[in-house]
């Protein structure tokens, strides 16, 4: 255990609702640097909402959210965080922008106001495109790419600022099976070799469990948060709790899971 390595993400008692109806209740979550957290949960369970709270796109009704130790309200180093939205693909497909221009947007926050793209930024953009295997598409218009290729462009846009934390909200929807495997390999490599902390929202529990180090299950409350192995061994029970209707079962599991979320620090040390 190391006290000096502060959590990349730290949520305490987070509560949120769009109207009076709560969408998220009493969320506690702590993500250690170097971990690869998979977040699962049924449709409408609040996963995307939680991501928006983390990014400061929405404001929590209650509780605290800390990014790299700083409360989200006063956090300014947004270039330390990369984001691929679930809706990334629903942009105006007629938008006259090249793949290169779109990926460049990932650097704009980092370059800062009143400054322009320099040679080194352009190299970074090409480097990010190489990572997702799209370098020869840099001059193509974004709307003319296939859905899966577009998704990879948005991943490159999130990677280009070399973030320490990468948040991906169902990034592989519409991506073919081969590319999904490549994509997971890429994430694994970013996580193991570059030490990037990953937060991946997905429905693909099967494929995910081979790659992630931690799992969290969300359905309004957080039902489980722990290491992948533990998740696998309790999987059936977890799934029943999360997708079933029996509230008492949910409360029961609730107590089991989410208090011991610091047990895997050793692993993240090893990764580093």
């Amino acid at each position, binding site marked *: 255990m190391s006290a000096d390595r502060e959590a990349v993400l730290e949520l305490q008692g987070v509560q949120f609702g769009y109207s009076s109806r709560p969408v998220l209740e009493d969320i506690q979550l702590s993500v250690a640097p170097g971990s690869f957290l998979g977040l699962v949960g049924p449709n409408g369970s609040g996963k995307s909402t939680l991501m928006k709270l983390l990014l400061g796109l929405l404001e929590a009704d209650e509780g605290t959210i800390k990014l790299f130790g700083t409360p989200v309200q006063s956090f300014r180093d947004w270039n330390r965080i990369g984001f691929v939205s679930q809706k990334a693909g629903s942009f105006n497909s007629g938008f006259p*922008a090249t793949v290169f221009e779109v990926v460049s947007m990932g650097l704009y926050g980092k370059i800062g*106001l009143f400054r322009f793209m320099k040679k080194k930024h352009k190299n970074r953009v090409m480097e990010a495109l190489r990572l997702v295997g799209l370098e020869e598409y840099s001059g193509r218009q974004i709307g003319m790419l296939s859905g899966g290729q577009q998704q990879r462009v948005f991943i490159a846009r999130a990677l280009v600022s070399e973030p320490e934390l990468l948040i991906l909200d169902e990034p592989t929807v519409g991506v073919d099976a081969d590319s999904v495997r490549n994509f997971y390999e890429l994430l694994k490599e970013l996580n193991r070799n570059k030490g990037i902390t990953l937060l991946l929202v997905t429905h693909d529990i099967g494929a995910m469990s081979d790659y992630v180090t931690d799992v969290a299950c969300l359905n309004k409350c957080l039902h489980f948060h722990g290491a992948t192995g533990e998740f696998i061994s309790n999987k059936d029970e977890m799934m029943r709790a999360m997708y079933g209707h029996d509230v008492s079962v949910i409360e029961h599991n609730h107590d089991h899971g989410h208090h011991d979320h610091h047990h895997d620090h050793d692993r993240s040390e090893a990764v580093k």
Partner: protein
Amino acid sequence: MDIILNLSFLERGIAAGLLIGFISPVIGAFLLVRRMTIISEGLSHVTLTGITAGVLVTQVAPWFNPLYAGFLFSLGGSLLIEKLRQVYRHFEELAIPIILSGGVGVSALLISLADTGYTEWYAYLFGSIITVTTADLGFIFLTGAAALIVILLFYKELVSISFDPEFASSSGIGVKKINFLFSVLTALVISMSMKVVGILLVGALIALPTAAAILFAKSFRQVLILGILFGEAAVVGGITASYYLNIATGGAIVVMGVLLLAAAFFVKKLQNLWNRSERKEHAA
């Protein structure tokens, strides 16, 4: 400013036209990708309201330039539209008819109060390049330069927000502030074009060059460059035609813009045909 003072009325008109032909398509490109080109119509009518109010003011204070009032109203209208778009988040275009009809209604009231001849209104409605005064040109020059500098400085942020506001926000860009800035810019450009092309035709210089540019552009940068080229061509061609044919300048500029757009369609068609035959040859 000495140069500006010594210009003839024709030279002043041409200078004003060139400035507007440059900046309008730039604003047009951003409006296009936000699917808000129609905003220029709403704003130009609110500018008219401001100008009618300004004309009323000149009856008490003759030194007042109605263009300033036009700008202030345009700015107010622009901010109001931004507000209405947030209220009607899923029906954003609804903001335009609200602003437009409100603006025209108030203008009608004010015009009935003002004791002014038809010709002055004609100049504001359809533009009148020969009535561009030294003060007007100064206003156009200053606002145009300011708008261009601001766009250049905030280019990255403007592009990113237009493409994907959520990502822009998550990358640390102050979306609200930049949107406000853009509202101010749009209001500026619309009110400065008033004198040359007139309220009814302001939208044309914003929409037509961009419409032609988007046919060929592959990148956002190209939309800007081609738009500026089409815009300037419309202005130069329009002024020349109006001079030799003795027709209204504002109208001539807009008709020239329409003709250029038609020509662009034609060229695009040829290009497509050419590409297709290339492909066939390739396949054979």
